[in-house]
């Protein structure tokens, strides 16, 4: 899958879907569902932090 569409929108769609799962899972369950929510909401946060804070190697 190397189409321009996937290259441009692949990550945004993936992160968006993870966010939706994270927002909903904790709403409909406790315990393991809260943990799933923390992981799936954590991925977009980690991705954002990683790309905005990393320094290119010279």
């Amino acid at each position, binding site marked *: 899958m190397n189409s321009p569409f996937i290259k441009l929108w692949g*990550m945004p769609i993936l992160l968006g879907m993870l966010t939706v799962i994270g927002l909903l899972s904790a709403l409909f369950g*406790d315990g393991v569902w*809260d943990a799933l929510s923390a992981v799936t909401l954590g991925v*977009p946060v980690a991705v954002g932090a990683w790309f905005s804070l990393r320094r290119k190697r010279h």
Partner: protein
Amino acid sequence: MSAQSLRWWSWIHKWSSLVCTAFMLLLCLTGLPLIYHHEIGHLLGNDVEAPALAPELQANPPRANLDDVIASAKALYPNKIMMYMSQELDEPAIWNVTLGDHPNDEHYKPIAVDARTAQVITEPAFEGGAFMSTMLRLHVDMFAGLPGMLFLGAMGLLLIVAIVSGVVLYAPFMRKLDFGTVRRERSTRLKWLDLHNLLGIVTLVWALVVGATGVINTLADVLLKVWQSTEIAAMLEPYKDARPLVQMASVDAAVKTAMAAEPGMGVSFIAFPGTPYASPHHYGVFMHGDQAFTSRLYKPVLIDAGNGSITDRRELPWYLTALLVSQPLHFGDYGGGWMQFLWAVLDLATIVVLGSGLYLWFKRGRRARAEARQEHEQKAPAVQPVLARSGGER
């Protein structure tokens, strides 16, 4: 995307953002402490904790008679009347009682009563103390009441427009770049443009959900009014000629009646006669379910405050269910400590998106003016749309 539609989306993004940004920054900044209101209340010594029970009672804590709970609270303010009593899901040992001079008293007195012994625990600080109360009021209505709430709701709608138009503009900016590219070496403006795009797209769904549920929350008062004038009014039809209440039935018995009618449900709050959630002749007993999701939804049971019998009980209408579901999705208080933390980080990321957007507009404006001056001097017409130039800059 054609140059014309790019210019059109750029215009939408610029103006929807510019109008709402100052208010969104206010909401992000005041929302941050609100995410941690329990923890801050604890630090400030403003939160209420139930005293430890005697060891022999801890295994099977007693439940005090609700009429005794009310009597304890009223003993502090004999001239005030009951407005509400409520319990938080995770703190069944405390009844939060509010007393006022009249059923709509904004300067009500909050009193925490031990739900097991009916002893007054404390009179908690109003809305969690001066600091938290200020944050809350700034966040909810900017001290401007219903107009302030609705105004912030309109700003939230503009935020949604800004987010959607921002997603449309993401494509022309990022088409030739890998996801997450931040061009740090070229110029400060380019670096912040890339960070704006990156953090904007990463927080996209969260910001849309928190924005949209925030807008729904600003309609709370309006939705409540609609419910009162339709469904509550219909339930109260038989009482329209009733005389004012003289004697009030036992609240404890009323709640037992409601619990018997709705097995498996617990009590979230009880609204007393005359308040917006009851009627002049009724107790409104608002029950919640026992599952993660249903514990956030209410089922109201109206109890005749004269004789203690059930007048009516029905499901909430869809728009109040939507309001109740939108609240946790806005507050981020339904998934434990990790969710609170992620909510705070996403809030901070949104502040960066707002701030960088403002910075880019400011830089853009200065550069555009400088170029316009140049073009004017050279008498050459501008050919490229404003934002396409920055996208092609590499």
